[in-house]
C-alpha cells in the first residue's frame, strides 16, 4: 500500500492529478460495479517551481479529430523522425525543428519526468490584465471608508500597465471615465432598466470609432496591445485620478426612508460591467470585481424588495416556493455569467453584510466564470481586507497567482470517454470522439472554459470506461489521458500546459485486489462529494443524501468483508477504511445540509467546495482538530466530543473557520493570569502555540477563514460544538424534544452511523440490495427529514427504532 500512497502523492505533486482509481477496471460493466466512478481531481495550474515553461510551441498530432500533443507516452521512431500518437495511433512526422532528435537528444516533452509541461506561446501581442471594480455605494460610512481603503490599496498592488475601470452603483449605476482632467465624468444608468449589451455599448459610446483625442478604440486588442477605452485605463496613467475618485466616493445620496432598504442596482451594474468588457476587450483576461454590501433591491436581478418588513428569502421560503424574485434574478445572473464566460472574463463577488446579499442568485457569476466569492460581515473586517489583499499575492516568479480565459481540453485513449467536469467552468460544447453520452457534472463536451483560475483551482473530471467486457484489453495495456490547458498567464503571455497520464488496466474479476489497493479514498470522497453537491444544486437535499447513502452501501457491499448474520464482523480494507467516515461528515456538512444555513451561506460553501484542491476539500468535509496539552506536542484528535477536555486547548480548522477553544481548566488558568507569571512560562507557550499555528493557516488560506478564539462556555464555542461528533450526547439523541434544537446532535453520532452502516450492509448482503430496502428501512429518509427542520419526526419513527 505504501507504494500506492507514494505513487499517488508523487503523481499529485508532478501532475496535479488525483484519480479515484489508479488501476482501471477494463470493462464498462466492471467499472460501473466499482460504484465510485473513474474520475480525477485535476489542478491544472498547480504551482511547479521546478518546471520552467518551454519557450516553443507544442507538436500536435496531425489527425484533425485528435490533435493530441506529443508526450512521453508516444512511441518515437528516431530514425524515421516519426512519432505515433498514443491516443489515435496516427503516425506523425516531426516538424523540421526536431530534425536533430535522437534517443540521447530528446526534447523535454518526450522525457518521462515531463508528463506535465508548459509551453509559452509567442504569437500574438500580450494583452494587459484588466480589473473592473464594481462598487456598491449603499454602505454604511465605516464600511464604505474601509472599502475605499482596500480598493486604493489594491491599486498599488496592480502592475502599472494593468487596465482598471470603475463602476459604482446604488440607486443609479455610474460608469466612471478615468482620463478626465479637471472634472470627473461618469455615465449614469437607471438602476431599474435592463439593457441589452448593444444598448449599453451604444450609450457608453463604445460602438463608434470614438473620439480621436481619447485614443479609445475598442476591440482588436491583438492589434493594438494597449488600446483602451475611456473607461479602462492603464493604472500608471490614471493612478491619481482614480485615487481621488475613490477618495471622493460618496454614499449613495438618495434618501432611504425608515423601514426601507436602500435601492441597490446590482443587477444593472453587473450587466453594464459585463457589457462594457464585452464591447471593449472580448477574449482578453479581465476580472470584474463586484463589491456589494447588501442584496439587490431593484431592477433586473433584484433579490428582495425594498420593504424591510419583508425579509430576504430563506430555505424555508424556497422550499415553499415563496421566493418571489429568486428565479427571475437567477436567470438574470446566469445570463450575465454565460456572457461573461463566453468573453473569457471572470466575476468576483465580495459580499459583506450581516444579512444575506443574494449570493444564491448571483453565485453562478462566480461559479461559471471562475471568479472568487467572498462573504463577510463587513468590509471593515480583517477577514475581507486580508482576503482581498490575498487576491493580489504573487508567486515565486513575482507573477499574480491568477490566470485568465483558460480552456481545458481532455483527450482520452479509446477505451475511455470523458463524462463531465465539476468545477468553476462552463462547457464549450465541443463534441468529439472522446465524449461520453452519459453526463456526470458538466458533460457533453471535451472542452471547458475556465475564465479565472489560480494555482489551486481544481476540477473534478469524470470518465466512463467504454471498453466492452468481451473485448479484453491485452495484459499490460495502459489507458492514457491528456489534459491540455491553454490560458492567459498573469504575465499576459498565452501558455499551454499539457499533462499526460497513463494507468494500467486490470480485469476486475481476476485482479480486483489490485484495483482495490489502488483506490484513492480521499480523492474518491471528494469526487463523490462534488457529485453530491452538484446534484444538490438541482435536487432536493434528501434525495442527494439518499443517493450518497446508496453509493456508500454499494461500495461497502462490493469491497467489504463480512460474516453472515454478524454485523460486527464487517471490515473494510485499509484503502477504504476512511471512506465511510468522510461520508459521515459529508452528510453533516453545510454543503449538503441547509439546516441552519441561509441560502447565501450554502451557496458560498458550495462555491468553495467546488474549486478547492483535494487537501482543502477534505478539510471542508471533515474538519481537522488538534489538541494542545502539557502532555506532549500537539496531536490530531478525533473530531468528537470526547476530545473536548478541560486541560486541553483545541484548534479546529473547518476551512471556513479556525476555532481555538480553551478547555475549562485552561480558561480558568488564563483568567487567573498564570501566563503572565514567569514561573508558568510554559503555560504561556501552551497558550501561544495554537495561536501561532492558526496564524500559519490564516496566512495561507484563501478566502481568509473566520478566526474564532473562544473557551469553554463561551458563546462562540458553538462553532466547535456544532462540528464535533456528538458521541458524548448521542444517547440523548432519542430524547424527545432535544433533537430539533440541538444542532450538535444533528445527523447522529459517527459511531451510530458506522454501526448503522455495518448493520445495514450486512442486511443488504443478506437480502438483495434494492431500492425498496433503502426506502423501507428509511433511515436515509427519516433520519434526514429531521434535519430538514420541522419536516422530520424521526424520533417517533418505528423504523428507526427497529434498526437500532
Amino acid at each position: 500500500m505504501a507504494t500506492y500512497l507514494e505513487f499517488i502523492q508523487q503523481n499529485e505533486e508532478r501532475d496535479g492529478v488525483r484519480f479515484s482509481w489508479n488501476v482501471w477496471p477494463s470493462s464498462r460493466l466492471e467499472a460501473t460495479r466499482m460504484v465510485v466512478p473513474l474520475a480525477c481531481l485535476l489542478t491544472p495550474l498547480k504551482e511547479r517551481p521546478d518546471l520552467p515553461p518551454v519557450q516553443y510551441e507544442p507538436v500536435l498530432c496531425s489527425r484533425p479529430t485528435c490533435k493530441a500533443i506529443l508526450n512521453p507516452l508516444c512511441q518515437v521512431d528516431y530514425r524515421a523522425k516519426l512519432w505515433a500518437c498514443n491516443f489515435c495511433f496516427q503516425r506523425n512526422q516531426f516538424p523540421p525543428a526536431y530534425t536533430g532528435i535522437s534517443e540521447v537528444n530528446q526534447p523535454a516533452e518526450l522525457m518521462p519526468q515531463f508528463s506535465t509541461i508548459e509551453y509559452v506561446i509567442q504569437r500574438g501581442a500580450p494583452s494587459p490584465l484588466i480589473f473592473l471594480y464594481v462598487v456598491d455605494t449603499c454602505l454604511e460610512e465605516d464600511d464604505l471608508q474601509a472599502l475605499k481603503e482596500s480598493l486604493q490599496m489594491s491599486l498599488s498592488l496592480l502592475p502599472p500597465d494593468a487596465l482598471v475601470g470603475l463602476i459604482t452603483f446604488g440607486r443609479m449605476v455610474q460608469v466612471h471615465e478615468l482620463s478626465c482632467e479637471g472634472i470627473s465624468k461618469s455615465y449614469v444608468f437607471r438602476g431599474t432598466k435592463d439593457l441589452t449589451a448593444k444598448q449599453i455599448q451604444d450609450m457608453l459610446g463604445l460602438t463608434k470609432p470614438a473620439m480621436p483625442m481619447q485614443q479609445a478604440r475598442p476591440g482588436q486588442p491583438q492589434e493594438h496591445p494597449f488600446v483602451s477605452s475611456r473607461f479602462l485605463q492603464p493604472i500608471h496613467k490614471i493612478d491619481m485620478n482614480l485615487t481621488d475618485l475613490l477618495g471622493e466616493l460618496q454614499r449613495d445620496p438618495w434618501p432611504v426612508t425608515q423601514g426601507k432598504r436602500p435601492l441597490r442596482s446590482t443587477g444593472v451594474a453587473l450587466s453594464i460591467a459585463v457589457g462594457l468588457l464585452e464591447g471593449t476587450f472580448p477574449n482578453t483576461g479581465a476580472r470584474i470585481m463586484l463589491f456589494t454590501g447588501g442584496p439587490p433591491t431593484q431592477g433586473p436581478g433584484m433579490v428582495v424588495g425594498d420593504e424591510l418588513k419583508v425579509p430576504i428569502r430563506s430555505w424555508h421560503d424556497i422550499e415553499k416556493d415563496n421566493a418571489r424574485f429568486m428565479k427571475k434574478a437567477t436567470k438574470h445572473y446566469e445570463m450575465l455569467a454565460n456572457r461573461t464566460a463566453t468573453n473569457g472574463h471572470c466575476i468576483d463577488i465580495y459580499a459583506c453584510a450581516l444579512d444575506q446579499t443574494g449570493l444564491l442568485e448571483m453565485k453562478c457569476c462566480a461559479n461559471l466564470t471562475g471568479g472568487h466569492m467572498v462573504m463577510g460581515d463587513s468590509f471593515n473586517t480583517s477577514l475581507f481586507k486580508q482576503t482581498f489583499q490575498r487576491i493580489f499575492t504573487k508567486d515565486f516568479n513575482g507573477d499574480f497567482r491568477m490566470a485568465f480565459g483558460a480552456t481545458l481540453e481532455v483527450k482520452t485513449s479509446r477505451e475511455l470517454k470523458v463524462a463531465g467536469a465539476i468545477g468553476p467552468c462552463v462547457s464549450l460544447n465541443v463534441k468529439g470522439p472522446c465524449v461520453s453520452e452519459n453526463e456526470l457534472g458538466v458533460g457533453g463536451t471535451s472542452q471547458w472554459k475556465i475564465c479565472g483560475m489560480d494555482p489551486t483551482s481544481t476540477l473534478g473530471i469524470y470518465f466512463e470506461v467504454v471498453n466492452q467486457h468481451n473485448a479484453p484489453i491485452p495484459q499490460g495495456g495502459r489507458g492514457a489521458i491528456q489534459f491540455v490547458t491553454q490560458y492567459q498567464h498573469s504575465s499576459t503571455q498565452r501558455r499551454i500546459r499539457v499533462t499526460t497520464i497513463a494507468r494500467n488496466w486490470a480485469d476486475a474479476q481476476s485482479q480486483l485486489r489490485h484495483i482495490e489497493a489502488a483506490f484513492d479514498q480521499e480523492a474518491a470522497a471528494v469526487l463523490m462529494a462534488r457529485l453530491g453537491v452538484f446534484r444538490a444544486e438541482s435536487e432536493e437535499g434528501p434525495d442527494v443524501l439518499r443517493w450518497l447513502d446508496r453509493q456508500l452501501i454499494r461500495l461497502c457491499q462490493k469491497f467489504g468483508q463480512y460474516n453472515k448474520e454478524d454485523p460486527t464482523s464487517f471490515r473494510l480494507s485499509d484503502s477504504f477504511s476512511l471512506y465511510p467516515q468522510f461520508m459521515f461528515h459529508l452528510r453533516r456538512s453545510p454543503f449538503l445540509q441547509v439546516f441552519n444555513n441561509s441560502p447565501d451561506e450554502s451557496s458560498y460553501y458550495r462555491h468553495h467546495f467546488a474549486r478547492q484542491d483535494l487537501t482543502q476539500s477534505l478539510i471542508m468535509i471533515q474538519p481537522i482538530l488538534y489538541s494542545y496539552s502539557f502532555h506532549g506536542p500537539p496531536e490530531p484528535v478525533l473530531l468528537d466530543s470526547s476530545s473536548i477536555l478541560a486541560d486541553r486547548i483545541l484548534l479546529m480548522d473547518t476551512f471556513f473557520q479556525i476555532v481555538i477553544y480553551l478547555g475549562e481548566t485552561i480558561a480558568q488558568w488564563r483568567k487567573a493570569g498564570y501566563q503572565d507569571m514567569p514561573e508558568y512560562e510554559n503555560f504561556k507557550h501552551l497558550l501561544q502555540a495554537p495561536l501561532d499555528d492558526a496564524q500559519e493557516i490564516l496566512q495561507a488560506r484563501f478566502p481568509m477563514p473566520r478566526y474564532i478564539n473562544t473557551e469553554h462556555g463561551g458563546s462562540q464555542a458553538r462553532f466547535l460544538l456544532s462540528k464535533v461528533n456528538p458521541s458524548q450526547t448521542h444517547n440523548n439523541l432519542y430524547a424527545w424534544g432535544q433533537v430539533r434544537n440541538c444542532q450538535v446532535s444533528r445527523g447522529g453520532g459517527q459511531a451510530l452511523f458506522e454501526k448503522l452502516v455495518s448493520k445495514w450492509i450486512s442486511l443488504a448482503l443478506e437480502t438483495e440490495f434494492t431500492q425498496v430496502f433503502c426506502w423501507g428501512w428509511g433511515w436515509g429518509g427519516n433520519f434526514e427529514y429531521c434535519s430538514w427542520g420541522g419536516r422530520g419526526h424521526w424520533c417517533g419513527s418505528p423504523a428507526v427504532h427497529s434498526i437500532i
Partner: protein
Amino acid sequence: MNVNQSAPPVPPFGQPQPVYPGYHQSGYGGQPGSTAPPTSYGAYNGPVPGYQQTPPPGVSRAPPSSEAPPASTAQAPCGQAAYGQFGQGDVQNGPSSTVQMQRFPGSQPFGSVPLAPVVSQPAVLQPFGPPPTSAQVTAQLAGMQISGAVAPALPPVGLGYGPPTSLASASGSFPNSGLYGSYPQGQAPPLSQGQGHLGAQPPQRSAPPQASSFTSPASGGPRMPSMTGPLLPGQGFGGPSVSQPNHVSSPPPQALPPGSQMTGPPGPPPPMHSSQQPGYQLQQNGSFGPARGPQPNYGSPYPGASTFGSQPGPPQPLPPKRLDPDAIPSPIQVIEDDRNNRGSEPFVTGVRGQVPPLVTTNFLVKDQGNASPRYIRCTSYNIPCTSDMAKQAQVPLAAVIKPLARLPPEEASPYVVDHGESGPLRCNRCKAYMCPFMQFIEGGRRFQCCFCSCINDVPPQYFQHLDHTGKRVDAYDRPELSLGSYEFLATVDYCKNNKFPSPPAFIFMIDVSYNAIRSGLVRLLCEELKSLLDFLPREGGAEESAIRVGFVTYNKVLHFYNVKSSLAQPQMMVVSDVADMFVPLLDGFLVNVSESRAVITSLLDQIPEMFADTRETETVFAPVIQAGMEALKTLFQPQTGAYQTLAKECVAQGCCVDLFLFPNQYVDVATLSVVPQLTGGSVYKYACFQVENDQERFLSDLRRDVQKVVGFDAVMRVRTSTGIRAVDFFGAFYMSNTTDVELAGLDGDKTVTVEFKHDDRLNEESGALLQCALLYTSCAGQRRLRIHNLALNCCTQLADLYRNCETDTLINYMAKFAYRGVLNSPVKTVRDTLITQCAQILACYRKNCASPSSAGQLILPECMKLLPVYLNCVLKSDVLQPGAEVTTDDRAYVRQLVTSMDVAETNVFFYPRLLPLTKSPIESATEPPAVRASEERLSNGDIYLLENGLNLFLWVGASVQQGVVQSLFSVSSFSQITSGLSVLPVLDNPLSKKVRGLIDSLRAQRSRYMKLIVVKQEDKLEMLFKHFLVEDKSLSGGASYVDFLCHMHKEIRQLLS
C-alpha cells in the same frame, strides 16, 4: 375728429370728413383745393367714391410729396389687384409678386417726371373738397369712412362702393373684370384718357373730373373697385419707386410729417412720372402688386392726384379713385391724441366701466378698487346685458390679463395681506376671495358674495363695524377691501401636497453639439453665466436669491453636473438613455450659487474646453427634426405627443421651460415650443447664430430671462359674477380642466387672454365683476395669492358697447384667436372668419348706432376706427399670410410669441412704430413723433427707425445728407454704409448720441432684445424692411390699408343690404 368719436351719425360728408381730416384738416384747409372740392366730389363719388377722393386729397397735400402721385398712377393698377384679392380671396396673393415687379419699372419712370403734379394736386383737391373743404375730401376718400363714427363722404362713397356691376361695365377694358378690378378699370380708362390728354399737371386736375365722369356712369355701381383701384395705385405704386425719385428731386424738407405737409400748400412739385402709365397697364394685366405708398414723406398725400398730374395719359383713370391715405383713420393720430388727452392725468380706477387710456399712452394708475389696466384690459368696458345683444354686436368679450405685470416705479406693487392661519377669507360657495365689492350686511356680521350672492358669516377675527354708508370702518385700512389688486399669503392648504414649497431652482441646459461649439455659443454662454448668476431674481430686499441653480449640457446624450460646494472639482454625469430620461443625481445638482461658486466657475470654465473637440453633430432633438421634414402642411402642428405629455408632466411638477434655439436649419419650432408653451416658458430663436452678430441680443435676452421676476408653480382662476363666464383661455399655459389655468412658471411679460360668454342676463345696475386669482410661489419660495378685481358696466344699448371698446385689446384677442385657429383650420378660413367678424362688428354699429346715411358711406365707431387697419395687419402677419421667405419655424415661433403677448406688445407688433430720426431737431429730447408705416411716408433724405417689439430697423434714405451719414455711421457717403450693420458706431456727436439713445430706450421698453439692422434704401435688405410697412401691400400679397378698408366697406355693405 369729433365726429369720429361720436361714432354714429355724422352726415357723411361734412362730419366725417372733418373728423377724419381732423388730422389732415389743417393740411386741407391750407390747400387751395377747397374750391375744387365740389366738382371733384361729384366726380369722385361717381367712380370711386371715397377712395378716389382720397387720392386726390393726398395729392393735394402731397404736393410736396409729389412723388406720391406718380406712384399713385402706377399704383392704381396695383390697387385693383389688391381688391381683386379681396374679392377673390387669398388666391390673388399670388399675382402680387408679379405686380411688384411691374411696379418697379413704373416707379422709376415716375421718378423722372417733373414735379408738375404738385400743381395738379391742388387742383384735385379742390374738386374734391366740396364744402367741407379738405375735410370733405378726406371724407370722400375715405368713403369708407375711415373716420370715426361719421361717414363723411357720402356721395363718393356711395358711388365708390357701389356694386361691382357698374364697374364691370366700366371696366370692360380692364382685364380685372372682378368687382374691384372693374372699378379701377372703369376709372382707369377715363382717367387715363383724361390724364393722358392733360399735361402732367393738367392731367391731375383733369383726372378728378374724369373720375367724376366716371362716377356718374359708375354711380350705379359701388365704388368698390374704384376705390381700390386708385388707392392701391396711388399708394402702392407711387410709393416706392416714384416717391423716392420724387423726393430726390424735391427738397428734403418736404419729407416733413404729413401734418406739416398738409398745412403747406402743394409745396414741391411732385415729380410726375409718365412711367405711371405703365403701371396702369400692369393693372390691366391683372397684376397689381404695389403695396407701398409712393410718398414716403407725405404719407397722406393724395397719391392719386400726383399721379394724375404726372400721368400724361391713359393710365390715369385710376388716380381719381384712390382713397387718400391721409383721409383714412391713422393709428399714429389716434395714439397721439390719446397721449395728449389722457397722458397727463393719472387714471383712477375707482369708477366702474371706465375705459383706460391706450397702451401707447404713458399714464399713472391709482388703484381705487379696480385692477390697474396694466393687469387687466378688456375688449369692452360695457358688457351687453344679454347674449342676444352680444351676438348681434359680435364684439368679443375678452380680458387680457397679465397677473404679474411689472409696474412703473411710481406705482406700488400689490400689498401683501396675511389672514393668518385660517388663510384668505373666501366666499363659502364660489370660493371668491374677499374683495372691495363684497357687501357687508347685518352690521358687519355677514357678507354677501358679489359673485354668487351667497351670504357668508364673517369670522370673528375679521369682524368690523359698518359705518353709516354700510362700509366697514376699516375698509381703507385693508387692501382687500379697498384696492383692485393685492396679495394674500397662502397657507399650507394652498401648497402642493400640503407642503410649503422649497425654493425654486433654475436649470441651465446647454447644447454642446458641434454647431453650438463652433458658433462660439457655448463659450459665450458659459462666460455670461458666470456673472449672470449673481443677478438671479430675489425677493424684495433679500440679500441673495433663494433660487438654486443646476447645469446640464447635452448633445446626443445628457450631461448632468454635480457642483456641490464640498467638491474639489465638478462631477459630470452622463445619461445616455435618452429614451428613458432620469436625473442621475440628487445631492449637488441644485445648489446655492454663492456656496458653490468655485465649483460652478470651474465647471463653466471647463464646459467649452471639454467639448471643444466634439464631433457630435447630433442632438437629442434630431429624431424629432427628421420626423417633421415631411408634409409641410401638417408641420405647423406639433408633431409628436411626446412633448405634450412631457409638458404636462412638467406642469404637474411645477417645472417651467424656457427654450433658446439657435437653429441653422429647420428644427420644428412648432413641436419644440410645445413644452415652453404649456409650461408658461419663453422661446427665443436666433436663426443662424453667429457670435459676432448675435451675441448681444442673445445675452441681453438671457440676462433678462434669468433676472426677471417669476412666479412658479402657478394656478390662475378667473371668477365672474353671475351672468357671464370665462369660457376660453389663450396664452402659454396648460389646462387640465376648464377653469384652472396652470402655469409652471409665469413672469411679468406673460399674458393670458380670457374670453367670456353670457350664460344669463346681466343687470345694468350691478354690472359685471371679474376676479382673477393667481396662486403662485414667489422667487423666495413663498406661496401667495394675487387677486385682481375688475368691475365692468353692463348696457342695454349697443351704442354704449361701441363707445367703451378698446380696439387694441380686441386685436389682441382676435390675433390670439386666429393664431390658435390655424392649428385646426386652413389659414384662409381663419382669415375669412376674422374679416367676417370684423365686418359684422362694424355693420352692427352702422346699422344700430350710426345715424342713417348713404349706404356708400363707411362709418366706423370712434373706438374702433383703427380696427380695420389693425385687423389688416393681423391678416398680413407671417402666421396668417406667410410669404415665401417665411419658414415654418418662423411662423411657429411668431405664433408662439403672440400667444402670450399683452396688448401693448400686440399693438406694436402688428403695427410697427416708424420713427423719423432726422426730422425733428436734434436737440429735442422727446421721441420723434411716429409716422405711419407706409413707404409713402419715407423720404429718401431721411433716416427712420422701425420697431415692432421683435425687430429694429434703421432705414437710411439714399439722399441722406453726407453730414448725417458721417455723424451716424462714421463713413463719408451713403454707399459706404454697410448694409445689414447691426451696431452703430459710438460717435461723439449729438445725432449719434440721440439715435443710439433712442435705440436703447426702445430696447428697454421691450421684453426681448431687438437686434438692429441697418437697411439702405434700394438695398436688397430693404425687402425685409418693407415687410413691416404694414399699411402697404405686402410682398406676400397682403392688402394695403386702403384696399382693405375698401374691402371691409364692401363686406359691411353686403351685410347691411
